[in-house]
Structure formats: structure tokens, C-alpha cells
């Protein structure tokens, strides 16, 4: 329990630091939310009205205290660009990114782990080496490039799916699936490749253990030994990697949402950064931190479910 608290506290400190840095830098850097909202055609009076409304003309100490107050009351504030509560904006975008991430994770697990097992089973023989080689290449392909190629093949040439259109799940589940599957694949590809490698390595490490020999000596065939004994053991390090991948999917979605023009959190973040929408940027940072804490929490739970040893010995 103590370990969790320490972890949580460290996360909290880091987020606070990031928030403080964003506040300070948004003070220094050029770019003004009111200007960027109104554009070149605004009259002076319109600009001044908006600047006053956003509190841009208030002295630093007032803005700082307002910021601190918001921070401690959990009020994310109102977006400067959209005049809508930040939490509302984020919640609106969340389903897209979350479903994208979940679909990608499912693909990674469903494709990566079995292929990793197959590759480990064949070890140094041809299928194993082939899968390793392909996964090595898969890891090197930038996801936005594969995204572009996927759009070209499936969107423009074949017209199977339509990039840039997103229908909410509630409206048309199949449509939503169709609009998310390509970006999910693009995000998943490099991670599938790395999961294959990790699974392969982890299984091959486990295969050196005596319990494998014992299982074989019972008369189990290799497949059963892999699935019944080795896999679960091999999963433990893979889960750590999956946790890191889950966090990286969030990062990857920033780029992929841009490629596929999906109305997800990543695009919102880029918008917020380019329009100097400080409350929105901070809200996003908090949101991402929160998601990461949640992911880590789940990972820890999965550990304890899989590995009985962890219930006794705390992981440092």
C-alpha cells in the first residue's frame, strides 16, 4: 500500500511541476488566446472586449491566484478558445480516443501475443526468424506513414472505410467501428511488432526454466506446455510492457488523430497548444496524468491476479 501511495505522490508532484511549467511558459511565450481566436479581421474593440472577458489584462498575481484556486478546487476552468468548460470539452472527445486506444490494445494483444508465441515456438527455425524480422521492420515504420498508406489503400482506392468521418458509437456502432479501425491498426502496428518481440523473448526465457522440463516430462505436448504453463509466466513482463504501450498509444493517438482527422483528445490538445488555450492545455495534462495513473493501477491489479507471489512480496 505504501508503495502505491509513494507512486501516486510522485505522479502528483510531477503533474504539479508540469502544470507550473505550462503556466509560466504560457506567460513568456508569444501568442495570445484572444488574438488567435479572433484572427486578422477583428476590430480593436472586439479584441479588447474578449481580452477583458478572458482576464488577460489582469495583473500576474491575480491570474496566478486564480490559477492556484482552480488547481486546488479541482476546477479545470473555461476554455479560452471555445468559452466552454474544459471538462466538457475533454469528456466530449474522450470516447473517440478511449475507443481508439482500446481497439488498438485489443489488436496488439490478439495479434501480438499469439504471433509472439508462434515465433517463440519455432525459435531459431525459419518461421520464428521470419516473424522476428517482420516485427523488427514493423517497429521501424512510423505509424503516421502506415496511416497514410492505409488511408490510400482502404480509403481512397478501395473505399472500404472513410477517413475523417467519425460517427459516435451510440449513433451507428458499425460506422464508428469502421472509422476507427484503420487508425487503430496504424497505432497498433509498431506496438504489435514490439509485443511480438517481447513475447518471444519472454517465452524463450521461460522455456529455459525447469518447470518446462517437468511439464514436458509429465507427457504434455509442447503446445500445451506453452499455453498452460509458459504463457502465464511469460505474461508478467509483457504486462509491464503493455502498460507502457498503453501510455504510448495516448501519445501515438495525437499524431494518428491528426492523420485521420478524428475528433479525439489528441487533436484537441494540438488545438489547445496552437491557440494558447492555457486552461485547456492544463486540463489535458491533468487528464493524461489521470489516465496514466489509472492504467498503472490496472496493471498492478492484473499483476496480483496473475501472480500469486505478489500478494506476499511487495514489488519495489
Amino acid at each position, binding site marked *: 500500500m505504501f508503495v502505491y501511495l*509513494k*507512486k501516486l505522490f*510522485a*505522479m502528483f*508532484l*510531477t*503533474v504539479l511541476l*508540469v502544470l507550473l*511549467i*505550462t503556466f509560466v*511558459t*504560457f506567460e513568456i*511565450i508569444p501568442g495570445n488566446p484572444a488574438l488567435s481566436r479572433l484572427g486578422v479581421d477583428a476590430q480593436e474593440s472586439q479584441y479588447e472586449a474578449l481580452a477583458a472577458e478572458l482576464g488577460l489584462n489582469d495583473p500576474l498575481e491575480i491570474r496566478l491566484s486564480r490559477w492556484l484556486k482552480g488547481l486546488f478546487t479541482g476546477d479545470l476552468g473555461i476554455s479560452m478558445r471555445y468559452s466552454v468548460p474544459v471538462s466538457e470539452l475533454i469528456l466530449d472527445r474522450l470516447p473517440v480516443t478511449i475507443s481508439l486506444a482500446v481497439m488498438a490494445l485489443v489488436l496488439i494483444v490478439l495479434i501480438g501475443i499469439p504471433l509472439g508465441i508462434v515465433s517463440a515456438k519455432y525459435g*531459431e527455425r525459419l518461421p520464428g526468424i521470419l516473424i522476428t524480422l517482420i516485427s*523488427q*521492420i514493423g*517497429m*521501424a*515504420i*512510423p505509424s*503516421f*506513414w502506415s496511416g*497514410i*498508406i492505409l488511408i*490510400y489503400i482502404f480509403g*481512397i482506392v478501395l473505399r472500404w472505410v472513410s477517413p475523417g468521418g467519425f460517427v459516435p458509437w451510440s449513433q451507428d456502432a458499425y460506422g464508428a467501428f469502421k472509422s476507427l479501425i484503420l487508425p487503430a491498426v496504424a497505432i497498433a502496428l509498431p506496438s504489435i511488432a514490439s509485443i511480438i518481440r517481447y513475447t518471444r523473448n519472454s517465452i524463450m526465457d521461460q522455456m529455459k526454466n525447469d518447470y518446462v522440463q517437468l511439464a514436458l516430462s509429465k507427457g504434455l505436448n509442447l503446445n500445451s506446455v506453452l499455453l498452460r504453463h509458459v504463457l502465464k509466466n511469460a505474461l508478467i513482463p509483457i504486462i509491464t510492457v503493455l502498460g*507502457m504501450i498503453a*501510455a*504510448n*498509444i*495516448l*501519445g*501515438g493517438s*495525437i*499524431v494518428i488523430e*491528426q492523420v485521420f482527422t478524428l475528433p479525439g483528445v489528441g487533436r484537441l*490538445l*494540438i488545438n489547445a*497548444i*496552437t491557440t494558447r488555450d492555457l486552461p485547456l*492545455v492544463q486540463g489535458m*495534462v491533468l487528464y*493524461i*496524468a489521470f489516465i*496514466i495513473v489509472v492504467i*498503472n493501477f490496472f496493471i498492478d491489479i492484473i499483476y496480483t491476479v496473475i501472480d500469486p507471489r505478489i500478494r506476499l512480496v511487495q514489488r519495489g
Partner: protein
Amino acid sequence: MNKSRINLWIGIVLISVLMLMMVVSLFYTPFSVTEINRLERFEPPSARHLLGTDNFGRDVLSRIMKGSQTAFFVGLVAVSIGSILGVLIGAISGYFGGIVDEIIMRIVDSMMAFPSILLALMFVSVFGVGLRNTIIAIGIMSIPSFARITRSGFVQHKELDYVKNAKIKGVSNLRIMFRHILPNVLSPIVVAASMGFANAVLAEAALSYLGLGIQPPNPSWGKMLSESQVFITVGPWYAIAPGVFITLLVLGFNFLGDGIRDIREKR
């Protein structure tokens, strides 16, 4: 014996070829990289233009060659920043331990939990786009992994006899850290540097793709990709070439990293 070196050799060959291309581009490119030629737009690959031309009639191969300078430069400097600072932080943290170690490692852990592209993105958007800031951003985001690897090496080695002997002899901490321990924990750091190079190339491409990295007319593979994206129907070679080269370079460094690790593990 050859079998275990195959990763290493693939890596070395790929990197050498690309590096050769980079070195050649310092003195020579088949065509000017920036000069615009309105008569030769979207020429498909031919003997004259091996990789075709782009929407400005510029030779894609020449731009790819020039772009390799950016890729190597970004990778090299970013990895240097990341490894020097990371090793320094990791060494201090691992060698001295205690509360300093605790604080540093907690921060490093939290930093690693954040998607690194996000940190780089924030940095660049805050301090402005361009080559220099891209490099710094990528360098900073690679610090945590170097710090962690170095730290674990130092934690292991500081308990070993040769370190204790050195301490008894009265060798200064600084000297023990960097003359005694560091050479012994170097090989995982070298592996991390190789992988870090690959990641830096990918990160630069992603940032440039988002328009927040290298700025035109400097050729960058990522930027070329984003510029060429719409032309995929009229000039597929232009959209495909930069992607292929990014992949090859990343592949090269990944193989190299694996290769070095193979050798180390064999020992």
C-alpha cells in the same frame, strides 16, 4: 558465431549505406535541393531522377540525401544530450543512493509514464518550432531511459570489490564514478544509445509531420512525408520514398542495438 552477429551486421550495413549517402550529400547532390524547376514537376522515377521529382520539380533523391543530414544530426545531438545528462543523473542517483536517488528516480519514473511524444510536443510548442528546439526536446525526452539504465549499472557495481578497493585507496568519488564504474556499465548504455537514435529519428519525423519540427526549406524526412501526403495519387514515389528511408534508418539502429546486446549477452 556468425549467426549471433547477424543483427549487428545488418545494422552496420544499413547504417553505413545511409551514412555514406549523408556524407556524400555534404559535398554533392545530383540536383539542387531547394532550386525550383517548374518544368519537371511530378516526374516519375527515371534514370535522370532516380526517385522522381516533387511538386516543385525538385529531385526527390537529392532531398532525401539532404534530409539524411537532418536525420543523423538530430539523432546524434539528441542522443548526446540525452545520454550525457541521463548518464550523469543516473550515475549520481545510483552511486550516492539515498534520498537523492529516491527523488530522482520517482521523477524519472513519472516522466517515463508520460508518452514521450507528448512531452516533446509541449516543449516545442512552448519554446517554438525549429531544428534546435526539436533536438533539445527529443534529447530531453530520452534522458529518463538513460538515467535508469545507468543507475541500475551503478547500483550493481558500487558494491563490487574493485570499487571498494578504490574507495579504500582514497580515490575521489568523481573518479570512481567515471573512471572506474562507467567503463564497466557502458555496454547497456551503448545499446540504449543505438535504440535512442532510432527513437529520435522517429520522433523527429513525427514532430515534423505535425508541422512542429524541422521547417522548410530544410529537408526533413518527416516534413517531406507530410508535404507529400496529398500527392499520393499523382506522385506516389514522393510519398513513399521518405517513409522508406525513415524505416531503413530506424531499422539499422534497432538492428545495431540488438546486435550489440547479443554480443554482450553471449559474453
